[in-house]
């Protein structure tokens, strides 16, 4: 099948084109430039004036819940959610049951996703069964296709294990992704601050994050390993990553859309869809995060897509699990909160949602060149829409953004000879 993307803005590719037509045959880029009438014969034409085409977005922090909690999400439903949200790739976290700590499970997940439009890149556990005790078979995992290592949900509590993990993963140039939270200070329900005092909820102090970020940076310096700070949420942590980068250390960081959009004020309703880990913090933290996004301290935007069933979330606040789904609101929030509020340019969004995550995970960035496979995210930065959780492709609906008006939306994604457009998958 031949398709043409007409008159589309190009962004984030390493060429100087700003606007062009793109001819794609069976998923492969055939021509970039101006397509004449004769070239458009028997071609399905998409008029994409004012839309943007970028290298396919990759969300590097997603929980697909398979194996183990297929009632909440599967590799396929999560990938559908990713496609609907404007992603052609996700990296999935290993806190499944069983954990992704063996080559077999890496392969199991990759096979599940093999024929899907969305590329699924498993991130494997650092330690066996995420217990923090013994290193997982990192070389085998890497060979099977793991793109990084993490015990996400928990930090690597033991500094010696962290050291070995960084030293070992360094041989394969893969990052250790850290959930930064001091284990001795865990157990709260929201950010510790005036709001937690006011609501009578046990606090999660920002210092619990800062301590582990500090330790991890020191360890990254000592070992020369590659550390990636997941879902950064505090001002101090942003400052420390900035300093680490200035020193030239191998430290990168991501932030979730909810951490640059919401503050702890959102918890005043005791809505369990505002309960996450790390928790929503203060205005000061949000401002620091936005500053960190602007100056490049924070490399990526990742959703921490965390599906939970209704019955798990519709409970007493303290008993509710942490996390929200994010794949289908991520682009809308990034454009609304960062671009339309004039903090970042569209090009910077593409850097943080497509290019940088791939660099961190050593995945080649999709190219716009004749003969290459088309791997694109096409979005409209000005489309105004209302979030509707019932329309989510994700199997779970736990989002605090239901009914929120957003500006900017994914229009289509193209990858692996398939296109997702107007709510359906089309074979190219």
């Amino acid at each position: 099948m031949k398709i043409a993307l007409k008159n589309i803005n190009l962004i984030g590719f390493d060429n100087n084109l700003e606007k062009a037509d793109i001819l794609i045959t069976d998923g492969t880029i055939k021509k970039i430039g101006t397509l004449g009438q004769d070239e458009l014969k028997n071609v399905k034409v998409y008029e994409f004036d004012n839309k943007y085409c970028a290298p396919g977005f990759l969300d590097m922090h997603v929980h697909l819940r398979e194996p183990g909690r297929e009632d909440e999400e599967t590799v396929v439903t999560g990938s559908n959610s990713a496609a609907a949200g404007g992603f052609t790739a996700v990296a999935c976290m290993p806190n499944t049951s069983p954990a992704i700590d063996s080559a077999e499970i890496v392969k199991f997940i990759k096979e599940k996703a093999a024929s899907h439009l969305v590329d699924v890149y498993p991130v494997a556990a650092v330690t066996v069964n995420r217990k923090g005790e013994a290193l997982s078979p990192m070389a085998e995992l890497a060979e099977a296709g793991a793109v990084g290592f993490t015990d996400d949900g928990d930090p690597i509590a033991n500094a010696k294990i962290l050291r070995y993990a960084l030293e070992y993963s360094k041989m394969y140039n893969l990052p250790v992704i850290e959930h930064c939270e001091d284990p001795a200070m865990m157990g709260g329900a929201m950010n510790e601050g005036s709001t937690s005092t006011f609501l009578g909820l046990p606090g999660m102090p920002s210092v619990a994050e800062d301590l582990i970020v500090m330790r991890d940076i020191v360890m990254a310096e000592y070992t020369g390993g590659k550390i990636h700070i997941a879902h950064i949420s505090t001002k101090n942590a942003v400052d420390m990553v900035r300093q680490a980068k200035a020193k030239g250390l191998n430290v990168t960081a991501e932030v979730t859309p909810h951490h640059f959009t919401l503050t702890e004020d959102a918890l005043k309703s005791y809505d369990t869809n505002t309960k996450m880990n790390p928790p929503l913090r203060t205005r000061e933290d949000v401002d620091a995060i936005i500053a960190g996004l602007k100056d490049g301290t924070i490399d990526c935007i990742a959703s921490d897509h965390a599906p939970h069933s209704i019955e798990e979330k519709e409970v007493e606040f303290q008993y509710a699990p942490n996390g929200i789904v994010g794949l289908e609101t991520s682009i809308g929030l990034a454009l609304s909160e960062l671009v339309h509020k004039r903090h970042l340019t569209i090009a910077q969004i593409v850097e943080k949602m497509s290019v940088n995550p791939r660099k961190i995970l050593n995945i080649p960035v999709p190219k716009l060149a004749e003969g290459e496979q088309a791997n694109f995210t096409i979005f409209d930065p000005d489309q105004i829409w209302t979030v509707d959780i019932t329309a989510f492709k994700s199997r779970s609906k736990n989002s605090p953004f239901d009914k929120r008006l957003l500006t900017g939306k994914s229009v289509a994604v193209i990858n692996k000879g398939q296109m997702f457009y107007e709510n359906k998958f089309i074979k190219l």
Partner: protein
Amino acid sequence: MPLTSRHLLGLQGVPREDIQLILDTAVTFREVLERPIKKVPTLQGKTVVNLFFENSTRTRISFELAQKRLSADTINFSTSTSSTKKGETFKDTVKNIEAMKVDMIVVRHASAGVPQFLTKISNANIINAGDGAHEHPTQGLLDMYSIREKFDKLEGLKVCIVGDIAHSRVALSNIFGLITMGAKVSVCGPSTLIPRYIETLGVKVIHSIEQAIAENDVLNVLRIQLERQAGASFPTLREYHNYFGITTERLEKFNKDIVILHPGPINRGVELSSEVADGPYQIILNQVTNGVAIRMAVLYLLGTITR
């Protein structure tokens, strides 16, 4: 004038007029409690459920008595006999009870925010009887009632809440209510039992019990939870008593009228010496009696509100 809300979830945000109305209404019911026949027909035909997901004897009994004295039909539900142990969710439990047509729910739960959650899943009037370390509004009200009974006013009084502020639901309700009524509130205790951000609520923090006695008209002394904290939040009970315990010796040093409240149950020899617990400064048993009157007032005012 009726109350502005059909629930009592906490004292935060409750307007001064509402608190005033509850306190004034309680005066009438306090008088009923002195009659030979302590019962009025006010809530006849209303059904109230006491949903207690956490152990509590005195609060439940006080509510139950208040309900019975208002002639309401009362049902008690507590976790020991509940279906939550059979794996039923909180929501299903509430839905089931509500399907039996109840008008009001009094709820006690270990998790903060449960009363708010209840308002979303139930149509009954909700009364918070204590949620986690959040609020216990009827306790706050009965404390204010008891203080007002003693001083004839709340405006301008200096009240210090002493002890474990961090894990207390009584502290927050007192702070919110007393500040609304124009009292000056401080908290006193070891820094590890005082929330780091408590001053943002408009209270003063002190760490000397003698300063607390010297500066205040009222000390509302909270229970130290023996099982939970010794060794972690503070070193030992002995040290707590020596540095924060209230003794006759300490009180007499200042030779002033001071009123001691305690929500109970008391740990004698820890936060209060036995002598103080039974002595002339305390009004602990008045609080208990007033608690019934306050709960009658709250039940009456919410139960007769028109939707």
